[in-house]
């Protein structure tokens, strides 16, 4: 028994003060009478106050008790009891969907094992259940009984998102270090590396059977705006035997092609599908089917069907001409003087030519030859009459297939070192093409003007321009893919996202969309935006490689407290307050009945 806030006991000083006030109030009035003769006969009335027994007043006594109890409640009384709270961490990642020899999934196996363990545990403490995917989280408030915990655990489902091993290890380490649990049970497919910290009890599910997997499913066009698509699908054989695999690609439900490959044990490779006809949704299926169906399917969408809306802010509207010739691209021009940030609401990307926005744009943007010293980007520019390229990143998406030697910039400006944008192409006097990301958006600044877009008449510049626009539009390259468990920014104009399950979720443009734990096609829509499919894939061979699943390295920053149970302070304030209310109600009833009697009489 103890007190959480013993300082509150100072209010007990009120009690003697109240008693003194009561006694003072009760001090008799002195009255001179003719004779005390008759008063002597008053039986039982001669009760002394100070220095003697005070007259018993049960209501005052009750109120004194209530006051004392209120002070006690303020002091936060508690009792110390021993409890055995348990933390259960359940791996619900995509890898747990793999089937075992028995036909059950790893997750079902895990649920069965942990259920038996909890059922056999002596229930004397709360059970807190955590899930690991898409990010480690507690599934509900701690359960007070084994039954409640079991009901919640059996209602859990595995996700399509992989585990973040570091996060899971960090969670286990935190739970062991907090000292709130007498035991931490981890049930999953990942073993814990030695030394296993004390207090951690690991339940491993059985090994999955051999697995074949699809990896990344990339669609790209050789040229921005070109209709034909080139697909590259990564495949892997994580079994111990060589396997002949077949991958079939379908577009909007129509079979578009297939490819075969023989992979040795543990080997990975890729299958190419050239000139896939345009379709809204592409689906790649691996055959034969195996124990882990999740990585036997991959999705992709064709960029050609997506309209890219460009807002071109320029004092020279003629420079925007030519972009309209790119298939699927629409351009709207606005003069810098009449531009307002609200204009970006229905744009996928913005081009600021000879100008800079007064606030950071809410869409991916290209800033062409910005004026010096703008308040948002604060570019340090050095004008030059003849600029020459000194270097570029040869393996970058922006420089891919660009023949820089054929480029003739003429006059332009060099961009000085920028705090958060890095140079991709540099000249003799500074950066010529900077790239960076801010607040989830991509930004490119150029010291030359790639516009107007001339297409094949200026092919080297057009390739660079299309690379820039592709990067800003998020099309093509591998970085444009979306993976389970990885949130993405809601594009402009999108207000609703339909999940693969068919459930619709409200979304706010510019914010992270986090309900991405299921693999499949997400449909993005808004009042001014047509329904746009977005593929989300598992796309991680690390998940599919059951044979070499990395072990969790759990580290604790504090020694595990005790396996023998923890002392827990159970607060009694609520009970004291309940008692106060009960006594108060009882007193009120008695007083009410007492006052009512004369009325009835």
């Amino acid at each position, binding site marked *: 028994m103890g007190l959480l806030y013993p300082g509150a006991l100072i209010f007990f000083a009120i009690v003697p003060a109240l008693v003194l006030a009561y006694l003072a109030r*009760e*001090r*008799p*009035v*002195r*009255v*001179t*009478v*003719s*004779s*005390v*003769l*008759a*008063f*002597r*006969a*008053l*039986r039982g*009335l*001669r*009760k*002394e*106050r100070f220095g003697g027994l005070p*007259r018993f007043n049960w209501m005052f006594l009750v109120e004194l008790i209530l006051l004392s109890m209120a002070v006690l409640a303020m002091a936060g009384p508690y009792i110390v009891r021993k409890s055995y709270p348990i933390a259960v961490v359940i791996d619900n990642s995509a890898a747990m969907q793999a089937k075992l020899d028995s036909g059950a999934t790893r997750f079902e196996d895990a649920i069965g094992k942990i259920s038996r363990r909890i059922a056999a545990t002596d229930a004397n403490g709360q059970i807190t259940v955590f899930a690991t995917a898409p990010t480690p989280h507690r599934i509900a408030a701690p359960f007070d009984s084994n039954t409640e915990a079991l009901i919640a655990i059996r209602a859990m489902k595995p996700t399509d998102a992989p585990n973040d091993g570091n996060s899971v290890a960090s969670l286990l380490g935190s739970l062991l270090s907090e000292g709130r649990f007498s035991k931490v049970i981890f049930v999953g497919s990942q073993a814990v590396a030695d030394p296993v910290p004390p207090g951690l009890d690991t339940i491993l599910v059985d090994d999955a059977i051999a697995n074949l997997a699809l990896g990344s499913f990339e669609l790209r066009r050789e040229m921005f705006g070109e209709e034909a698509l080139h697909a590259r699908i990564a495949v892997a054989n994580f079994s111990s035997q060589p396997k002949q695999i077949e991958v079939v690609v379908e577009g909007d439900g129509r079979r578009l092609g297939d490819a075969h490959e023989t992979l040795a044990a543990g080997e990975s490779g890729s299958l190419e599908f050239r000139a896939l006809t345009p379709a809204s949704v592409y689906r790649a299926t691996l055959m034969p089917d195996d124990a882990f169906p999740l990585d036997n399917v991959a999705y992709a969408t064709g960029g050609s069907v997506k309209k890219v809306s460009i807002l071109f802010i320029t004092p020279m509207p003629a420079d925007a001409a030519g972009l309209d010739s790119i298939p699927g691209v629409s351009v709207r021009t606005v003069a810098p003087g009449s531009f307002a940030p609200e204009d970006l609401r229905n744009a996928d990307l913005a081009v600021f030519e000879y100008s800079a926005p007064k606030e950071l744009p809410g869409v991916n943007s290209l800033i062409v030859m910005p004026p010096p010293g703008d308040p948002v980007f604060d570019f340090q520019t050095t004008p030059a009459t003849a600029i020459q390229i000194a270097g570029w990143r040869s393996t970058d998406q922006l420089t891919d297939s660009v023949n820089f030697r054929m480029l003739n910039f003429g006059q332009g400006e060099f961009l000085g070192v920028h705090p958060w944008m890095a140079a991709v192409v540099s000249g003799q006097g500074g950066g010529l093409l900077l790239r960076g990301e801010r607040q989830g958006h991509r930004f490119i600044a150029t010291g030359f003007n790639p516009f107007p877009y001339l297409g094949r008449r200026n092919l080297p510049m057009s390739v660079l321009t299309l690379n820039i626009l592709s990067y800003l539009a998020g099309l093509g390259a591998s970085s444009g893919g979306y993976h389970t468990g990885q949130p993405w920014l809601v594009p402009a104009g999108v207000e609703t996202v339909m999940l693969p399950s068919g459930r619709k979720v409200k979304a706010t443009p510019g914010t992270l969309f986090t309900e991405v734990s299921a693999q499949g096609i997400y449909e993005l829509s808004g009042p001014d935006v047509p329904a746009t499919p977005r593929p989300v894939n598992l796309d991680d061979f690390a998940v599919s490689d059951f044979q070499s699943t990395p072990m969790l390295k759990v580290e604790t920053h504090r020694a595990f407290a005790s396996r023998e149970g923890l002392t827990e302070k159970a607060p009694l304030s609520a009970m004291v307050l309940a008692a106060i209310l009960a006594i108060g109600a009882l007193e009120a009833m008695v007083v009410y009945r007492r006052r009512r009697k004369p009325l009835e009489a």
Partner: protein
Amino acid sequence: MFDLPDEFTPQFLARLEELRIRTRRQYAGMGKGAHLSPKRGSSLEFSDYRHYSTGDDFRHIDWGLYGRTDKYYIKLFKEEEDLLTYIFLDASASMMYPAADRKFERAVAIALALAYVALTSGDRVMIRVLAGSGQKLEPAFVYGRHRIVELARKLREIKPGGQYDFAQALAREMLSIRRAGKVFVVSDFLMMLNSVTKGLGLFLAASMDLTAVQILGGREIQGQGLEGDVEVVDSESGERMRVTVGSREREQYKQTLMRLTREIKSFCLKRGLHYSLHLTDQEFQSFFLRAVTDLGLAH
């Protein structure tokens, strides 16, 4: 009126003049009066015969008896004398409380009324004040109705206060009383019962006719207006007592006080004494005229 209490209106005085003091025994007076005296005298009430002696008044010879016996007998008659009336007025501190009841003023009024009855009947009155402060009345009889004003003036100067032992005080007074007569004791009798009986018993022993008039306040008998926790202080002894007064306690107090008065009344009536209880919330004139018999008066 003439320093008399307000209750003494001309009409009330006229009604008092119709009253006289009645005694159960005959007492020798100090002069001619209206009360039969044990002395032989010249009243119309026959007393005895004796043989004629030389020098006796012929008018007192009973000629009828001479005819039957042929002897001269002189008829003797009782003397009619005034009555010596003693009025003992309690002026102790208890007569002052509760102040609102004005017990002492009412006691003075009763004493003056009794004195006026006696004086208008031609009796002699001596008022003795027990305790109190102020100019003491001289231990002398007054005679004549006009002396009532003098008595009233002197009694008005008396301030109740102090305490005394009732029995001892009356015993001391008895030493100065040389002749028996009618005695009125006006007091609240708020004292121990044995002290009361002992004091009143002294008059019985001296063959005096006694009327005890007990004065109690209207508020006093209802609990003195006390409520709740009070510390009561005895006005005479200074004794303090802490009590809690509620309706139940007030009733108990009243019953106790009434039992005390009943015991005093019982004591008086058993011994042939007159007893009358006056509560100050009663109307004085109507009380006095209705309680004539209890007061030992007669029309």
